[in-house]
């Protein structure tokens, strides 16, 4: 049997993934996290002077919440139920940093905790900055030329 045939056989015989249930859970958990974010954003809009500052503070507070929930094991349970609903919000980004830092701590402070903290968060930052850089550069060049 070829590997492709085997794969097909496995796919046909494995239990269908509860797609609808997963999506609904993701919707609920993700929505809940964003609602908490809205509470933080409303408070930050009052205390900060500019919109950019309010965004920055909101992101930071949500990251702080994410690290705390991860440290006490709450976020892992949330992620099990919520899937992408827990991974896509910025709290999930914080979760990848904290859980990697905690897990690789035993491989040493420098090369364990320090290096592996960004094992998933790293690509997000790298490609976020690269795409932001490119699109900003193009925008500036077009505005200069016109």
């Amino acid at each position, binding site marked *: 049997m070829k590997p492709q045939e085997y794969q097909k056989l496995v796919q046909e015989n494995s239990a269908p*993934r509860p797609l609808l249930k997963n999506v609904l859970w993701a919707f609920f958990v993700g929505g809940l996290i964003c609602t908490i974010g809205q509470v933080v954003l409303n408070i930050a809009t009052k205390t900060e002077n500019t919109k950019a500052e309010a965004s*920055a503070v*909101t992101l930071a507070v949500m990251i702080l919440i994410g690290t705390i929930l991860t440290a006490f094991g709450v976020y892992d349970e949330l992620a099990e139920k919520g899937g*992408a*609903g827990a991974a896509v919000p910025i709290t999930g980004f914080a979760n990848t940093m*904290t859980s990697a830092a905690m897990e690789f701590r035993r491989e040493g402070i420098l090369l364990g905790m320090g290096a592996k903290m960004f094992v998933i968060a790293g690509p997000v930052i790298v490609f*976020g900055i*690269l795409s932001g850089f490119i699109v900003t550069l193009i925008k500036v060049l077009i505005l200069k030329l016109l």
Partner: protein
Amino acid sequence: MEYIIAFLVGGAICAIGQLIIDTTKCSNAHLLVGLVCLGAVLSGLGVYEPFQEFAGAGALVPVMGFGSSITKGMLSELERLGWEGLFTGAFEITGLGLAAGIVFSSIWALLRKPHK
């Protein structure tokens, strides 16, 4: 009302993410990187700003908002500083959260043992 919009929009983005993970071979990491890039590009095109104006935290808190904040920082710092802003702007809005994430992740890693 703005809480309901944040819930619905944020939930919808996460539900679409879950749909992509479940129906394609896309992993969590691929999804996050894709969303960040999408947010950064949409912000450069000037689309994300009005969307965030409407959806509030529903647009800011998903990782797309992180990407959009990178571009937004670059554009505003570019105006303020000139070409240097193209680089320093990346962390103008996101830097606070990133540094906080590094500090608190380190503290928890030193204080607490992993679960399981």
